[in-house]
């Protein structure tokens, strides 16, 4: 009989982080991955010989810096390449190109608005202070307000100290972002449509909300909490794509003595007397452990792997009502060359960071309106990048691979289904890119379209929501994934959750995995005492 100290279901990045910490603490830990390789939605796949696709997740920012230290990730090959520029084209041929020099950025924005150029600095300063103030919340196990345990009262006190310790202007901004649309916030600072459009993109990523929806402020803030070399809101490309990153996590876990088993989907968490005792694989094999951790989304964790009838009704109700509603797609291209912008001379420069196709609030709202009608955006928001302009290992020399993150592609289509619409979405994205970069169509050598349904089928995430559930204020912190169950435990003893559906939430962030491991190890210590 195979028995481990801990089994982690799902070799996505949070599963691997969680398993890494458990293994580091000396637990004999097994990671079970349904697919042939680990990484979950953060995989790099050589779908054509010599061409490495970041099929799903494609950039890094939120990964907690402490995790990189504690799991020795640089030693295992972690390398996040900086993005020297971001490019934001308008529909009339104008563009904003922002880079590493703040005065050059000032003059670039000043072409559109002198005051906005200066406001960028003011806004950046308040946002740095907001992110700095909130950072401890991202890195703590959230308190359970329903509990009167001394430990919980202490956590609540810590939470209040953080919230009340902020300077008043920081507090105001947090409050505003928590409750308002990003449009309301940006309108206070900026006047130019293009400037506002560029800044707004983080507010709609992966979410069923437009820049004028009240949920968008929170989504925006969540993304700003990421950092590159200590600069909030900056992103990088991992060497070899985000799959390169999860491979590092896998090596780190194995270096701590952990075991990875691929092609090993889990059908059920085995229980006995209200406690987890192991798992049953799709193959029928049973593997035992006193600690079982689900890195899957809350729907899979609570409604599939165990029998919901054994769970408290209010919890089941919450999970059933938890908003997944995946709304993002990926359309990835092999290109024979870098696309040309009619008004920018050095084309490859444009694509070394994010290409932000979503010029204004109006453009974004129009695209969102399609989604609200139950169809994909005919002229979508696109977050594009050509990693091969930075990382020469992504393609054969001279060729390029372009990743495009696309909004909105609602999981629930009104009058059609995704198997019918897949190529139509690909065409819409290609046509949109062709309108901003005339001649784009001629460069396309290959196209991969990944719909929310594909994400659900391939990666397994409910409704293909890239965050394991919307990052709306009512699904965060105290209530991620459900009130009372926001501390990585479940009602089944020894059964834990560590996916993006737990605090703090989605993106390649690692915090759920780490914080869950802290909870598991603490519970284990208490039980042993």
């Amino acid at each position, binding site marked *: 009989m195979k028995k481990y100290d801990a089994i982690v279901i799902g070799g996505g990045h949070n599963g691997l982080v969680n398993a890494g910490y458990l293994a580091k603490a000396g637990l004999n830990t097994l990671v079970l991955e349904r697919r042939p390789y680990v990484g979950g939605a953060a995989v790099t796949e050589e779908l054509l010989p010599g061409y490495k696709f970041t099929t799903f997740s494609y950039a890094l920012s939120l990964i907690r*810096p*402490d995790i*990189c*230290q504690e799991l020795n*990730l*640089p030693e295992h090959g*972690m*390398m*996040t*390449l*900086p993005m*020297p*520029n971001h490019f934001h084209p308008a529909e009339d041929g104008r563009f904003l190109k922002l*880079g*590493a*020099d703040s005065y*050059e950025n000032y003059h670039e924005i000043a072409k559109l608005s002198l005051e906005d150029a200066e406001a960028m600095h003011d806004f950046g300063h308040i946002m*740095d202070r907001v992110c*700095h103030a909130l950072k401890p919340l991202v890195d703590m196990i959230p308190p359970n307000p329903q509990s009167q345990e001394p430990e919980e009262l202490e956590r609540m006190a810590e939470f209040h100290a953080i919230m009340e310790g902020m300077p008043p202007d920081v507090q105001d901004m947090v409050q505003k972002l928590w409750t308002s649309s990003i449009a309301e916030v940006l309108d206070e600072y900026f006047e130019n449509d293009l400037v506002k459009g560029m800044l707004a993109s983080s507010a709609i990523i992966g979410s069923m909300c437009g820049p004028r929806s009240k949920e968008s402020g929170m989504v925006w803030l969540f993304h700003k909490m990421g950092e*590159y*070399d*200590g*600069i*909030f809101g900056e992103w990088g490309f991992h*060497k070899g794509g985000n799959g390169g990153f999860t491979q590092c996590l896998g090596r780190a876990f194995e270096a701590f003595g952990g075991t990875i088993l691929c092609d090993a989907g889990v059908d059920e968490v085995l229980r006995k007397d209200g406690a987890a005792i192991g798992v049953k694989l799709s193959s029928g094999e049973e593997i035992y452990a006193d600690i079982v951790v689900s890195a899957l989304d809350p729907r899979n964790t609570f409604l599939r792997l165990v029998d919901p009838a054994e769970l408290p009704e209010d919890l089941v109700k919450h999970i059933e009502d938890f908003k997944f509603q995946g709304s993002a797609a990926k359309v990835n291209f092999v290109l024979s060359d870098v696309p040309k912008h009619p008004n920018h001379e050095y084309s490859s420069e444009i694509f*070394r960071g994010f290409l932000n196709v979503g010029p204004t609030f109006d453009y974004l709202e129009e695209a969102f309106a399609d989604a609200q009608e139950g169809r994909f955006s005919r002229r979508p928001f696109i977050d594009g990048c050509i990693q091969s*302009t*930075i*990382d*020469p290992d992504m393609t*054969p*020399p*001279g*060729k390029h691979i372009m990743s495009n993150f696309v909004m909105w592609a609602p999981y629930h289509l009104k009058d059609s289904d995704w198997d019918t619409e897949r190529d139509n979405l690909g065409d819409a994205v290609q046509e949109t890119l062709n309108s901003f970069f005339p001649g784009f169509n001629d460069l396309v050598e290959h196209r991969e379209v990944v719909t929310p349904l594909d994400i659900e089928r391939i990666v397994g995430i409910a409704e293909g929501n890239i965050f394991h559930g919307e990052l709306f204020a009512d699904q965060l912190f105290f209530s991620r994934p459900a009130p009372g169950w926001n501390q990585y435990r479940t009602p089944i003893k020894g059964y834990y959750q560590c996916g993006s559906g737990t605090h703090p939430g989605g993106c390649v962030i690692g915090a759920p995995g780490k914080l869950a491991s802290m909870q598991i190890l603490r519970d284990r210590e208490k039980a042993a005492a």
Partner: protein
Amino acid sequence: MPKTTPFHPRTGPLNHPQIWENWAGYLVAPQYQHSEISEYYSVRNSAGLLDTSPLFKYKFSGPDAEAFLMHAMARDIRKCKPGRAQYTVWCDDAGYVVEDGVIMHVSVGEYWLTAAEPNLRYFRQIARKKGFDVQIDDITTDYGILALQGPKSLEILQELTSDLNGVGFFRLAHTKLDGHSVVISRTGYTGDLGYELWVPKDSCVAVWDALMSAGSGYNITPMGLHALKMARIEAGLLLLDVDFYSSRYAWTDAQQDTAHELGWGWMFKNLAKDDRAFIGREAIEAEIANRTSRHNTVGLIIDWYDYQEKHREAGIMPPLEGVFNEGTMNIYKISDTPWEYGGYATCMMYSSLLRSHIAIAKLPLELCEPGTEVDLELSIIRRSVNVKARVAELPFFNPARKTARE
């Protein structure tokens, strides 16, 4: 007016910020783009192309060339067979380091050396005093030098020549690039896979173009001095006038170091079997025998959590990006006596790749054991604050590809 290097017709227009640094009287680019971290990463991810032409270049030839170098250089030049290169130092009679440099045995009895400072008169004086029949020429302006450094450097060169196949670390190749004769050594100042190309001055522009064209599919990136200086700290390679000074112009002993004190003791591992009477030998032997080294040169890794904590206490974000300091920083012993002086760091930076603040430090031998904790003095909002750091072995970064055979 500062001089320009033979690559200037190409590097000039590429210098986007249009800021120039004066290196030995030549204009060189500290960076070509605003994102210096992107230039740095070219060395670890693709390939960086760097103009190091201002280095002083000397040719040694004639009947006594080998005998002269056996005497003048601290390492045994006889170990550097034709087709090889050697990293060496030259010391004074007291065993203090004059300078360091790479010497190449380009053809039987002919050696080329790069140095950071003028050394022609220095070497010729030694030859004259000891009566060596050696011809020493300054060939500084005859050649431009390009460093092509990074994991893709070999593949890029292989687009142009097959003569680098099987050329090992610190080995040379004589080859032609796009019809132009060059001497290539598998050496560099980045601690990565990389090559340095000696290009006759009239071929420089053509060779630059050939490399940029061959490298276009590999993200070849013109790289300035700043990125080089970041890479060299990670590689644990010392820099004259930052980590040490030449003993030639020192006023006191405190301004100079022996090779052992700079962490170069490995150069003298086989001294007992070495029969040369080289300059500084007696002093070096005495230093070893009497254990008189005042310090060693080691790495320091600043404690991540203490660094975060000390800045958070001060109410600010802990700076990572852009932290780079080539000034002296004090190090204190961790003891009951506060601010008990331990030694000093000569350079400190945040390494984006290693996700650590790292420093090169000179510490008394009792503090040099890897893992030893010390306090490094930082200035946080204009106040002196001690942050915990741990001694580490140099280099900080040493990828297998640097010395890999294939």
